[in-house]
């Protein structure tokens, strides 16, 4: 065996070429995965399928999926009403549904998907039964800045949180408009928890 390094050294250009090649392939793979991930998450059908696998719900006027994620054993889905608040891009109803294993609780926080433009003016907590378990229902009323960033609308946000089996279940109902509370109440009454595991 020869001492190949003395005869065949690695040039700086070769090093740069190899590095660029490795970088290119890594980027290609990473971007492919990222695109696939985003496409999956933003697929309305997939999002609604995930949502309906967790909760049976009814939204007046129909619903559509906005965002769905199924990773690390945790699932989060966002669905909205088909109808928008008149003259705006904001859906009248938005529901964030999640089922998170305790180990993923820090990484997957459904509250991070809730609307940050909502400003609670009043809030109260009621006893409620969710997924067959007594829990607290947080009712918040207030205002929400619309997507144009200028106008505001009356808004209500109902939050339910409980632990079923080894999963943390959470539902956040966000409604807009003068009748936001009635819409939220309607949705809340029609929520049916789907439990497949304990």
């Amino acid at each position, binding site marked *: 065996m020869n001492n*190949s390094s003395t005869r*065949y050294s690695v040039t700086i250009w070769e090093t740069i070429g*190899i590095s660029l090649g490795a970088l290119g*392939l890594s980027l290609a*793979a990473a971007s492919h995965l990222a695109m696939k991930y985003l496409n999956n998450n933003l697929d309305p059908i997939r999002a609604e399928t995930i949502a309906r696998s967790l909760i049976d719900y009814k939204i007046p006027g129909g619903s559509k999926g906005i965002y769905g994620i199924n990773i690390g054993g945790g699932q989060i889905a966002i669905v909205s009403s088909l109808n928008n608040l008149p003259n705006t891009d904001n859906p009248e109803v938005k529901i964030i549904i999640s089922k998170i294993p305790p180990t993923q609780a820090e990484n997957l926080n459904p509250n991070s998907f809730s609307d940050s433009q909502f400003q609670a003016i009043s809030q109260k907590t009621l006893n409620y039964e969710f997924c067959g378990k007594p829990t607290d229902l947080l009712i918040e009323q207030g205002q929400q800045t619309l997507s144009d960033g200028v106008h505001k609308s009356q808004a209500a946000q109902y939050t339910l949180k409980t632990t079923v089996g080894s999963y943390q279940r959470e539902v956040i109902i966000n409604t807009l408009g003068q009748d936001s509370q009635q819409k939220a109440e309607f949705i809340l009454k029609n929520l049916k928890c789907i439990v497949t595991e304990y």
Partner: protein
Amino acid sequence: MSYDSNFSVNSGLTSQEVAERRAAGQDNNTHLQSSRSYRQILSENLFTFVNGVFFLISLVMIRLGRISDGVLVVIVIFGGVLVNIYQEIWAKQKLDRIALLNRPTATVVRDGQEINIDPNLIVLDDILTVRAGDQIVVDGEIVGQGKIEVDESLLTGESDLIPKKAGDQIYSGTFCVSGLAHYQAQKVGIETVAYRLMASARTFRRVLTSLQKEINLLIRIFILLACFLWILVAISFLSLNLSLNDVVQKAAVVAGLVPAGLLLAITLSYGLGAVRMLGQDVLIQQANAVESLSDINILCLDKTGTLTANTIKLNSIYPLTISQEQLIGLLADYNASTKTPNKTSEAIQMAYPTSPRQLSQEIAFTSARKWSALSFADDSASYYLGAPEILGKSLNLEPKAINWINDSTQEGLRVLLMSRSNQTLLENSPQLPLDLEPLGLVCFSDQLRPQVKETLTGFTQAGIVIKVISGDNPTTVAAIAKQAGLGSDIQAISGPQLAELEDSQFDQAAQNYTIFGRITPEQKAKLVKSLRSNGNHVAMIGDGVNDIPSLKQADLAISMESGSKATRSVADIVLLKDSFGSLPHTFLEGQRIRNAILDVMKLFLVRIVCITLLIFATGLVTEGFPLQNKQSAVVTLIGIGFPTMLIPLWAKPGARSNRSLIPATLNFVLPSSITLTLVSLLVYLTFLVVAILDLPATASLANIDHSIPRSALVCILIVGELLLIPFLKPPTTAWVAGETLDGDWRYSIMSAVLLVIYFLGVSIGPFRHFFELSPLSPMSYLFIGLVGLEWALILRAIWRSRFFDKFLGVDLTTSSWH
């Protein structure tokens, strides 16, 4: 037992007496195999530890319903065993045929008549006639007036002829060289010396080469590793609630870590070597013999039958008181006319052929007297031919002639003096006359076997130390060794001198001396043993029965075809037609085999290390096992299996590294296996993430379809392994990194063809289904191909920059574990 005088030499036994003795079981009808038995060959090849382990694995797989997996293991392992058995049986049959061709006949006197019979038909007390050139087939005692000279070298190792007369014992396995006599059979069948020696020679003997030992060690280490993983798999069966099928799958993949195919590759290399060697008149009896020859560093030779062809030739003549023409004429007449020819007279006749003259008197040559004489019917003078030191006592030689004799003797040549006397020759009174007149000197040399000089020079140049161990006089042996080109500074020691040494001194002498003369068979064996115990790999070449103990002690036993049957039967290699000149070819073939096995070993090690690391790595980052059993099998088959079948065909001879197996492969295996594992893992994980992302919206991770990630892993492993082949045998300088430039494109072409075969196979449904593979998209194949190329470039840069050497702080290209 003494000669029974009731039987006449002239009449021998009667037919009735023969029948009586045969009925009493006093005949020579014994069957002794001339080679290893079929049973021996089968048991040596079948019942090995490694075979047992693999057989068990295949049985477990078949029992668990994975019949194709079980059959796969059986085919791989027992295919190799069958190749070995076939080759060894073939060699056995060849040896049996040789033994049949060389079978002697015996001349017995019965009912007053001489008849030729098969030696098996000899009975006790038979009177046998023995002439020059006859083999003595039973033990007995010379009877009657006849005198013969016997070559007992096959029994004792001494090439000096032993005179035998009435009352002397002669032994089966020896040869009558001159004279004519009768002897009475006193020991027949299993009582004969030849039978006893052959029976004792048949002790089991199988010596593994250092390469085989290291490979066996590696296989056992991998079996231990597999056992460890099997325990983990068994635990996972309980802790993870795996199905029995999953457990069997995992167990089977783990079983695949034991490099069964390596044994097959080695077997094929050995078999191929044996076939190649047959064209060189070399018969391989032990599969590993050719490779073993490349492993040796000391070659021990027996002088009599190995260096010399046991014939002598006339070298030169030196006229003293007559002209050269007269001396030639006289020598020619003398030797053409003698009635008792021997090797010396045959050599003179070969040099100066002529027609015989009528003799009036003749005194035959004997070793004890060391001269012969004759007188012609048409010449009143008597002529004497013999050793100068004997004839010289009766005459005065001039100093110049004495110098010529001394010089010739120093060179290992044999000198005879031709002289004349005017006294009448008396046949019944062999006395030297006082009026001897020196006529001339004749010089003879032992005829070296063809190509002895070239062969020994070749071995010496290859760094192999030659040692000549013989029963002959050390001076004679040293002289012949010089004639054979072993150098003028060789040192000789005799058996009696060795006998006085203590063990440590004996070992030192064995190491330091080149010539060992007057050595007994036991000392010969002790010398070989001593050399081996000092870390040498010793090959012993012998031909006689006296060589058997030393042949059995050697790492490699080589025998001449003309040697005794017993010697051939214990030899690993038999040189057909006594083709000593074939040894260098065998040596090169051994190097070729070793190089091929080393190359194959590197590929196997990369695969095993890679799969093992992948099992642990995927265990850390995922819950699944990286490959199914059949997927692991297809990686082995295409990435390793086919290449290892072709590598032995194309391997070239070349100097081997003195390092042991693992350090010798480290420079190639370490960087390639670690980087290939990493790249394969990344590819597997990339495709695994895609599979996770492709999961139905509501499916859990338990529902991941692993077939695509596993198929991608199979693909990158195969691409990687096939890309390693040009690195192993670089066709151009572009591929030179871990190995030297080979320049042979066949390996790279094979690699490309195998890649095409893999892709074609994957596109064929039944192949894909059998190996549990899924088709990948063209983009996936392109991605894997690009990753493979990128990995090859990275690997080349790692080798060329000697990254691992610098990181580990050792020179992997030269490091040794010792």
